[in-house]
């Protein structure tokens, strides 16, 4: 490695000092002169007509500036929050896409649906006055469970979506699957629920709207993973503000995990209200509000079957899934249980025929959209649980059945039967590294030792694959995305040789300010402290599609490489001119531009200075300046993959499950900063273990109330719930189609971990005849499973 802060170095993060000293700038930290505070009046009912709103008492309360409602927005012609992805049903009809207004218009559809806002001088005054807004509701029957939403007698969430159906979609070759099942020697089946989750980034959502009447410009500062997307959606579709008059800033953002991708109504409300009252307006969610209104994740109910031959080779997979989309379509909601889910059902296996059907339904719950992994954890969990059941049916070891069915590395690139083409991966190698790492051969002895102290021990695998770096724009468009999904970067050398990079990716914990700077330091040999990465401001960055789907490095980093290529080409021209040589004779290495075969050379710093203070550039061929912009559109998704192994110990007396070991072997392609990559894996694993053992978002289907609406009720993983981890990766299978050879590491931990953990739990309980438990495996659920075991097995 030439540069100590270049590619492959565990550079300590450049952004850390400000976070460690309390100098981060999160949205709620911003104050503006004359700023007001906004609090929402939200529906306490899951489904009701709004017959009237009496704001007189609130308006008379101390400090109140305004009370605004959906009618005010309607009068100002504020539009519906748009959905960014359109799915078509089996019969070719487009999905049902009901209106989704920032403030409800006559009807509310989930607990937390916004009805009105109170704006006051202080937040406490706004809160107090919000209590005084009298809303006349007429309650309507409600439904929160997807399984009941599809029944004939279920209440209808939207008049325009009969049977609460948004779409009834499918993928794959049904006839081929049916034929394979007719030939099968073994069939494994499973019914499972992928439990609903609340993303719970530690920074609650917040938004600050400003309007400058002197020039007609609006500024929205918001907790977003993709400010340009918010500007496009809100400007063009909701508020009708031209983009040159709308600046969206996403400053330091305290975690996203998908929940801050989407355009939320609150962003439109504060921006609109700022002009209406002529003052800046800030809204910051309480955690309770986050629970009610952040887009939730998962919530699938599925049935799956795997057909096998006599030797346990997979012949066909058949999957039927019911997906809960909540009360309205969030920005990317329709794509999650379809193109980010069913397309991953091949997993790491060469199953020749796959058919998946997905019904997506509306319910009286918060909208459901992408949460870390977004569709891929649901696919991985389903396949990996089913493969464990298949191992039992076929009488094979769980590692062996996986190995037997892996797509071999020699088959890459591999076209799956569900639309994707994997470019690279050596799945057997991941398993080969993992088995000795976890001492698989020693498991029986550890299990016996646990048994000797009255504990049950289990081990579980998850050999996962995901599709990241979303996405090739042409493919995304063909699949229903209403925008291309490229990325943009600009590299600006300054006259004295320092560099500013403008990226359309956004960091909300991932460490772009370090990783992206490493790429520049490596390429041009500049000290890393002379490189600044600017992200999250539409007034500075040409454009951007933002950060989600583990796309920052694979797509945004590749755009940066492309921009650096352009910088280098320009610098080469300048060097040739200055050194009076032919451009073809200039050799470039580590930021030095040398005339081949001579000692005549220039550093990038000299070239940058000349670029800005030229006296004799041949202006027809060479313009001053060293500032280049590039857009990169990937050719394919990237396919991170790996093998996760979890080992648990269960106390049969209490049902408490303890994760005693967790190991991850991952293939992320090339790794730029190992320290950051490992950190992403650790965090992802805990979100996966959290889903498996602790977290569950529960609505009471009778009352429609969210029962898990705080950290008192929703069990977040804490330091004492998890162990330390063993994390390994290899770089033998770089991505074949992006210039960095990177695949993405942001979601892998979450995708692999829940399946590995549940496979371990079920393995531990297998002595009691347990073949499946739905997540989360709480102590109560585990204890009941043991109590309900067949007496003969339990006595063993």
């Amino acid at each position: 490695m030439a540069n100590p802060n270049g590619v492959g170095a565990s550079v300590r993060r450049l952004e850390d000092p400000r976070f460690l000293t309390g100098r981060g700038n999160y949205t709620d930290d911003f104050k503006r002169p004359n700023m007001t505070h906004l609090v929402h009046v939200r529906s306490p009912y899951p489904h009701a007509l709004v017959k009237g709103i009496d704001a007189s008492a609130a308006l008379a309360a101390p400090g109140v500036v305004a009370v605004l409602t959906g009618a005010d927005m309607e009068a100002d012609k504020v539009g519906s929050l748009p959905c960014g992805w359109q799915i078509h049903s089996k019969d070719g009809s487009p999905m049902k896409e009901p209106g989704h207004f920032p403030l409800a218009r006559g009807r509310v559809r989930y607990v937390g649906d916004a009805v009105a806002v109170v704006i006051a001088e202080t937040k406490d005054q706004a809160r107090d006055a919000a209590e005084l807004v009298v809303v006349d509701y007429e309650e309507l029957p409600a439904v929160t469970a997807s399984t009941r939403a599809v029944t004939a007698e279920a209440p209808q969430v939207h008049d325009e979506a009969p049977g609460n159906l948004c779409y009834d979609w499918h993928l794959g070759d049904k006839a081929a699957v049916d034929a394979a099942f007719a030939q099968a020697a073994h069939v494994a089946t499973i019914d499972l629920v992928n439990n609903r989750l609340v993303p719970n980034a530690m920074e609650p959502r917040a938004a600050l709207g400003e309007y400058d009447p002197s020039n007609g410009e609006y500024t929205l500062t918001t907790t977003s993973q993709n400010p340009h997307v918010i500007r496009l959606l809100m400007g063009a579709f909701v508020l009708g503000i031209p983009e040159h008059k709308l600046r969206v800033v996403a400053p330091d953002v305290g975690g996203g995990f998908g929940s801050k991708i989407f355009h939320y109504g609150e962003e439109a409300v504060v921006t609109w209200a700022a002009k209406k009252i002529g003052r800046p307006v800030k809204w910051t969610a309480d955690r309770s509000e986050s629970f009610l209104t952040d887009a939730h994740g998962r919530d699938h109910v599925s049935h799956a079957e795997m057909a096998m031959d006599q030797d346990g080779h997979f012949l066909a997979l058949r999957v039927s899934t019911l997906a809960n989309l909540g009360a309205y379509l969030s920005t990317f909601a329709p794509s999650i249980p379809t193109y980010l889910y069913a397309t991953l059902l091949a997993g790491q296996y060469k199953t020749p025929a796959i058919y998946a059907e997905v019904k997506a339904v509306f319910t009286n719950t918060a909208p459901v959209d992408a949460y870390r992994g977004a569709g891929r954890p649901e696919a991985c969990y389903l396949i990996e649980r089913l493969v464990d059941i298949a191992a039992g049916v076929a009488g094979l070891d769980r590692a062996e059945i996986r190995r037997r069915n892996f797509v071999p590395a020699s088959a890459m690139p591999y076209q799956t039967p569900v639309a994707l083409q994997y470019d690279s991966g050596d799945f057997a190698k991941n398993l080969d590294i993992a088995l000795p790492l976890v001492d698989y051969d020693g498991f029986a002895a550890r299990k016996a030792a646990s048994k000797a102290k009255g504990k049950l021990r289990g081990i579980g695998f998850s050999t996962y694959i995901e599709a990241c770096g979303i996405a090739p724009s042409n493919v995304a468009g063909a699949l229903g995305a209403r925008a291309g999904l490229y990325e943009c970067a600009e590299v600006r050398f300054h006259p004295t040789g320092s560099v500013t990079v403008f990226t359309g990716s956004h960091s909300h914990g991932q460490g772009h300010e370090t990783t992206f700077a490493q790429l520049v330091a490596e390429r041009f040999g500049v000290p890393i402290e002379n490189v600044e990465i600017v992200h999250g401001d539409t007034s500075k960055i040409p454009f951007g599609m933002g950060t989600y789907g583990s796309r920052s490095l694979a797509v945004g980093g590749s755009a940066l490489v492309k921009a650096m290529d352009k910088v280098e080409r320009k610098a080469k021209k300048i060097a040739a001119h200055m050194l009076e040589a032919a451009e073809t004779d200039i050799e470039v290495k580590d930021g030095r531009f040398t005339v081949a075969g001579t000692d005549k050379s220039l550093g990038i710093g000299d070239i940058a200075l000349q670029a800005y203070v030229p006296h004799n550039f041949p202006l027809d061929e060479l313009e001053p300046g060293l500032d280049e912009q590039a857009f990169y559109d990937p050719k394919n998704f990237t396919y991170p993959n790996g093998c996760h192994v979890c080992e648990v110990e269960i106390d049969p007396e209490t049902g408490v499950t303890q994760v005693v070991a967790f190991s991850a072997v991952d293939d992320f392609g090339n790794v730029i900063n190992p320290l950051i990559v490992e950190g992403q894996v650790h965090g992802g694993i805990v979100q996966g273990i959290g889903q498996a053992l602790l977290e569950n978002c529960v609505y009471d289907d009778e009352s429609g109330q969210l029962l898990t609406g705080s950290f008192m009720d929703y069990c977040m993983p804490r330091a004492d719930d998890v162990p330390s981890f063993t994390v390994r990766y290899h770089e033998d299978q770089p991505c074949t189609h992006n210039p960095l050879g990177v695949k993405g590491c942001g979601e892998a931990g979450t995708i692999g971990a829940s399946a590995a953990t549940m496979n371990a739990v079920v393995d531990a309980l297998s002595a009691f005849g347990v073949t499946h438990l739905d997540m989360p495996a709480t102590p109560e659920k585990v204890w009941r499973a043991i109590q309900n075991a067949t007496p003969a097995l339990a006595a063993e």
Partner: protein
Amino acid sequence: MPCTVTMTVNGKTVSREVEERTLLVTFLRDHLSLTGTHVGCDTSQCGACVVHVDGRSVKSCTTLAVQANGASVTTIEGLAAADGTLHPMQAAFREHHGLQCGFCTPGMVMSAVDLVRNNPTPTEHDIRDGLEGNICRCTGYHNIVKAVQAGAEAMNSPSAKAAAE
């Protein structure tokens, strides 16, 4: 009824007129513009708001400003040395990548400092147990545990002890 609270914050005496119901975290963030202390929940569960009041870690979202009247308060902004040198615990969090989005970090660091002051040589179990009241959604705690172990060692070094006195 407004009331006056006076306290020492990061070594400086401050006095403000506030409503009685003003929380300490609101006092710090809104009245003193010390926005390093964060609010991550409304049930005193997440620990993003932890500060030191008379040397003990306290969740400032569940403390009234008037309760800290006359007290000495240290926030994350006051932890580093006057010359900007990071406190050993801050430095250890950076070295071991114990933070990602940074939102829980101020509370996590303040809790960790108090934990080590009470237990200079914590085991992994002690650390996990001691930080149970601070939720982090990003790191999976793995690197936080490593950082606190390293931070504890650094805080126990003779030079760090001298600096703390």
